[in-house]
């Protein structure tokens, strides 16, 4: 600093000092960020472990073609005549119930279902490719440690609407097998050495260097789905898928802006086996529903995934006692109208071509499930709704129950009985929505009917 200062020089030097002082906390934060492991802010009873609670025999896992699921292959499994008959049943029931004004099937409910199922950008394998890349801007691409990259992707995703976020590193002999061999539209998914992803009518090429799967959940509304199986109850599922389309595109453009690829789901449920990725990323555990159950939201989420060449810090599978709890709880199976869920213990024996072998699960009869959807004219969701883990977790009793269930199986049956008493007034009439659809219209719910307070990323 000069010995003698004019007023202007003094102010200039003071400004420099201010800049240094204001930058100091930022430098400190940067240091903290690189030192601190990134993860979900979860209670201590949720343990991480190297292998999932449900067994996996990777040697017997093969890449699966999505079109063999009942979602796409229903006609193949039940025959064309039965599929046509069920379509007629669906049309007739919807028409009858609309005219009768059946609870959940009124014009109001059907209009809301149409509205919630609208909007959302189209899904795309490689994204819109419109964001300016670092190369376009004349700067090097963003670089950081895998932990820093995980942190910024998590922060971005949560701001874009995701609930929980995890990461899986693809390994040829294990986790890479969770990528579908074929997408829902029959297009082959190839994994090869290449510089950029590529898409033709016959195949979609995933460069081998895209080794990291970003796995994220998007919340559904428990309060809404409690009205299932009705159009108004199913509407939260459609809405969540529409929201996820926007999230995927924005994540793809964010990654492009950083200088990396974002390989997304080319259509709904494409790219890879969502529950399996969710389990491997530690977002939840497999369950009697044969779907992912998360500690935060139970099964009330949809799971999505995206591949990138941005190196990320993998998150580990968890043990929150959910898999064990499902061994003691039969509520979803008992309340499933077509009784398609497993009543026995978990097994390695698949129930049909819609299951992928090589892992332990409560395998389900998916064709019975899908047939029931036709009869009610919409998707179902009773098993999601009645799951004890679907509780909204503001009442501290739920946190107490979750922490006890994570440590011992001794009280699981008592917790199920209590859940029946608290949340299932129509326990013996599972086809009756647990709350009336008409009452949904009078509820004062938060945005999207979800609670975004839970699961704040660990930042300190």
């Amino acid at each position: 600093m000069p010995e003698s200062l004019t007023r202007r020089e003094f102010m200039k030097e003071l400004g420099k000092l201010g800049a240094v002082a204001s930058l100091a906390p930022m430098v400190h934060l940067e240091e903290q960020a690189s030192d601190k492991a990134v993860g979900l802010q979860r209670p201590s009873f949720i343990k991480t472990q190297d292998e999932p609670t449900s067994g996996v025999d990777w040697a017997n896992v093969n890449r699966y073609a999505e079109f063999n699921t009942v979602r796409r292959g229903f006609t193949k499994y039940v025959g064309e005549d039965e599929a046509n008959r069920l379509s007629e049943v669906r049309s007739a029931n919807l028409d009858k119930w609309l005219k009768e004004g059946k609870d959940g099937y009124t014009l109001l409910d059907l209009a809301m279902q149409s509205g919630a199922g609208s909007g959302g950008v189209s899904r795309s394998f490689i994204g819109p490719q419109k964001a300016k890349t670092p190369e376009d801007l004349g700067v090097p691409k963003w670089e950081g440690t895998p932990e820093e990259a995980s942190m910024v992707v998590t922060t971005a995703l949560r701001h874009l609407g995701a609930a929980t976020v995890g990461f899986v590193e693809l390994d040829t002999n294990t986790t890479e097998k969770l990528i579908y061999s074929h997408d829902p539209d029959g297009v082959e998914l190839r994994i090869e050495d290449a510089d950029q992803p590529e898409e033709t009518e016959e195949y979609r090429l995933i460069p081998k260097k895209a080794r990291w799967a970003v796995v994220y959940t998007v919340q559904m509304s428990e309060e809404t789905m409690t009205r299932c199986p009705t159009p108004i109850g199913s509407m939260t599922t459609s809405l969540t898928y529409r929201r996820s389309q926007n999230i995927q595109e924005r994540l793809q453009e964010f990654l492009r802006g950083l200088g990396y690829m974002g390989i997304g789901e080319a259509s709904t449920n494409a790219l890879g086996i969502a529950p399996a990725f969710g389990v491997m990323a530690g977002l939840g555990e497999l369950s009697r529903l044969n779907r992912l159950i998360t500690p935060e939201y139970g099964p009330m989420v949809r799971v999505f995934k995206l591949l990138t060449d941005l190196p990320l810090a993998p998150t580990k599978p968890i043990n929150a006692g959910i898999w064990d709890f499902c061994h003691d709880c039969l509520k979803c199976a008992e309340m499933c109208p077509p009784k398609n869920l497993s009543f026995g213990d978990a097994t390695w024996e698949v129930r049909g071509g819609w299951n992928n072998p090589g892992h332990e699960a409560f395998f389900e009869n998916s064709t019975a499930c899908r047939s029931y959807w036709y009869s009610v004219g919409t998707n179902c969701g009773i098993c999601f709704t009645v799951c004890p883990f679907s509780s909204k977790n503001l009442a501290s009793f739920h946190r107490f129950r979750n922490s006890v269930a994570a440590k011992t199986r001794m009280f699981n049956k008592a917790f199920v009985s209590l859940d029946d008493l608290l949340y299932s007034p129509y326990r013996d009439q599972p086809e009756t929505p647990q709350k009336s659809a008409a009452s949904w219209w009078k509820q004062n719910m938060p945005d999207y009917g979800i609670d975004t307070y839970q699961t704040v990323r660990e930042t300190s």
Partner: protein
Amino acid sequence: MLWLILGLVLGAGVYWLVTTEKVKLTWYEWVLVVVGVILLLYGIENYSASQLELEPRAGGFLLLIFGLPGLILAAVAGVLAFLRAKKA
């Protein structure tokens, strides 16, 4: 606000129990009161949170399940202390 009011009521109650000459609690009556109040507060917390969850039915049951035993325990302590005071 609910917890501020409950805190004030609880504080006033404890202050009265400690300072009053009319009622002197034995150690086991204090245990009954403390356990009872904890259960009652737990019931109230679950009840009010269940209202926010839009689950009033569950809230009512939780208040009953935790609050009622809490109330009974505290009442038992009160009755014991009252009977003793009456006898003396």
